[in-house]
């Protein structure tokens, strides 16, 4: 009989918990107060000995997205680069300066660190990239969580911008 009572008690307790879904949570107000929302704590990547993502080369990585293969002509297509420069000016310069680090990294010399495919995928779908690509993820952390804006460019426009990047030294 005692066993039955215990059993029923247990069931009752189980129902109480599952029904309300209100498991008591200990409030941690004091700790919240210690960490104001504006304070930035930059998390260090696991392998701390490595260079920061913006300096780290990853030339075997095409990134994540619809651009799978880009063929670069040895000579720069000036018309494409000119279009790319114009697109870069209106869509990107709020955060990227051609020759210096700003809100985001500078694109000068980018192809020494990244594949053309990676660059275009980053332009075309920055959200997917920062979710799935390890370098893009690390860059987001390195740049204070300033998420790159998707400027809704076409693949051809991204290719023009890539050509413009080749002209930057």
């Amino acid at each position, binding site marked *: 009989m005692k066993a039955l*009572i215990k059993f029923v008690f247990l069931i*009752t307790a189980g129902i109480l918990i599952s029904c309300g879904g209100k498991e008591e949570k200990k409030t941690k107000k004091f700790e919240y107060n210690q960490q104001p929302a504006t304070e930035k704590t930059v998390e260090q990547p696991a392998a701390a000995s490595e260079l920061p993502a913006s300096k780290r080369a990853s030339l075997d990585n095409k990134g994540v997205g619809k651009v799978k293969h880009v063929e670069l002509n040895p000579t720069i297509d000036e018309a494409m680069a000119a279009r790319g420069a114009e697109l870069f000016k*209106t869509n990107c310069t709020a955060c990227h300066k051609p020759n210096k680090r700003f809100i985001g990294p500078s694109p000068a010399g980018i192809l020494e660190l990244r594949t053309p495919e990676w660059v275009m995928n980053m332009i075309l779908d920055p959200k997917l990239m920062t979710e799935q690509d390890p370098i893009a993820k690390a860059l987001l952390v390195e740049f204070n969580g300033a*998420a790159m804006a*998707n400027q809704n460019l076409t693949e051809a426009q991204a290719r023009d911008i890539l050509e413009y990047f080749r002209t930057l030294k």
Partner: protein
Amino acid sequence: MKKHKLQLLTLFGALMLLTSCGNNNNQNKSSGALRSSAAEKVYVAPGEHDEFYAFMSGGYSGNVTVYGLPSGRMFKEIPVFSQFPTSGYGYSEETKPMLETSHGFVPWDDAHHPDISQTNGELDGRWIFINGNNTPRIARISLTTFETEEIIEVPNSAGNHSSSFVTENTEYVVAGTRFSVPVPQRDMPIKEYKSEFKGALSFISVDPEHGHMDIKFQLIMPGFNYDLSHPGRGKSHGWFFFTTYNTEEAHSLLEVNASQNDKDFIAAINWKKIEDYVNNGGGTKMPANYAHNIYDESTHTGTTTMKKEVLTVDPLKVPGAIYFLPTPKSPHGCDVDPTGQYIIGNGKLSADLTVHSFDNMIAAIEAKKFDGEAYGIPILKFEDVLAGTVKSSGLGPLHTEFDDKGNAYTTFFISSEVVKWKLGTWEVLDRKPTYYSVGHLMIPGGNSRKPFGKYVVALNKITKDRYLPTGPEMEHSAQIYDISGDKMELIYDFPTHGEPHYAAGIPASILAPKSKKIYRLDENKHPYAVSSPDQAKVVREGKEVHIYMSTIRSHFTPDNIEGIKVGDKVYFHITNHEQDFDVPHGFAMIGQQTSELLVMPGQTKTSVWYPKQVGVWPFYCTDFCSALHQEMQGYIRVSPENSNIEISYSLGED
């Protein structure tokens, strides 16, 4: 014994918990089963979309709200006739002109009857029109941007109520006056109302490409109250029908004095005939003064043009174009069935519905069977035009909508119910209570040739006990009924914003695919737009300072500005450089005596600030735009009026 008690209590407690939790095992409770099936019908799972859009007029909010059906979830409030601090509509320099009228800036109106544009009598989903009742205006809202694009004032009109209904191909949006007034306005004794006051019915043409509105002609009718209207369709296309009341022409205590006549009229207007007359040089140009406000999507700017003339038509000059159909008891709603054969007049002081037949009307006109005239306009014989009467024993019939199976649905205000009846047999098929005092009702496409008869929404006037009380003032309540079966089934209540009068519904499949996501920056023709951040600048022109500013996650360019002085008039021209869906930026300046701006991707908006106090004053982004939103701020240094500090501005420089 004690042990037993404990055991019993424990078991009892367990049982209580089992029954109170979930209700899943309650097969024997029939109301529970019904409730769960009603719940399934309105349940739209998280992340899934509704089947219909519903556009509810806001009544005294002056705006339109957008809901999903069947869920009753509200998606957006579209500012139309009222200032809207949420977005800056009517506060920003670009949108202030939208609220200009011949009376000056009017920041509010009473919005009543939305109607979606049609092609061949079917909803085409290009625009939705709505009337401002108080200071007579008609607005056109784009159904790609869901923004007000145009507002035209209606002269010679007052209480713009029998509006804004569109003809079968959106040739016209029609606006009729509820209150007759002296036309043209003049100083005269009110007592001389009779025969001196007139009721203007305005036919506003709609440009088929851009939707731009223009008053083609105004029909200057006798001084009755023109209450509601609907276009003919199909065979009756080319006609328009208006209910009238106060054919007594009372000017005081209308409650009594306008309820004397046993029958008022439905005015049947052959607008095609009048259009021909006007196209052949007919009509009289009358001096007028009314505002025409157009918002240009590429400049993101509204402009006002004052128009000085309107073409009026004397009904007696176009014989055979206008007839009166006697209709009992101060008819309110005036609805035409999807075939265009039946014209339903709901005598609001009657228990029955009067249904006129278009064919009978034409036959009576051709046989010249008249029963007198009113101010020279022939009155047809009631019995000759009557198709049937719906004997429903409800009280206070107001409005009728239609499904796609030959049924009509009429609201009864006084007896608080929706009555379903059969067109042609006039047989009442079903009736369901509403909670409470229903006004209009809406079936998506229910006033077109092609209704989508799955749901009817009742728009109730009294909320009372339907929701948790919120003090004396409450939102109104809508109720959705499933009408796919023989009997209507009430499936959900939801509160609505303002006082929805009429509403318009349309399948989501027509609108959703063409809903605009961003404004393209490279199509922005705003004169103060900055297309790239290096064009951001601050320019002083005497006492006026123009700040050309751009935004992107998450900073303003520039964000430090000096050289502003007390007594300046400062314009903030903010261009949002985002090109991604749903990334607006907000802008607010401390102490600015206006609303914030909410700037959509690719858009430019402007607000004015009069700095009055010396100091360094912050501004910030009001829309939580990114993880670094809290960092999106800037400072403006305000110096004394006689200071000689030059304008300077920067971003990220020391």
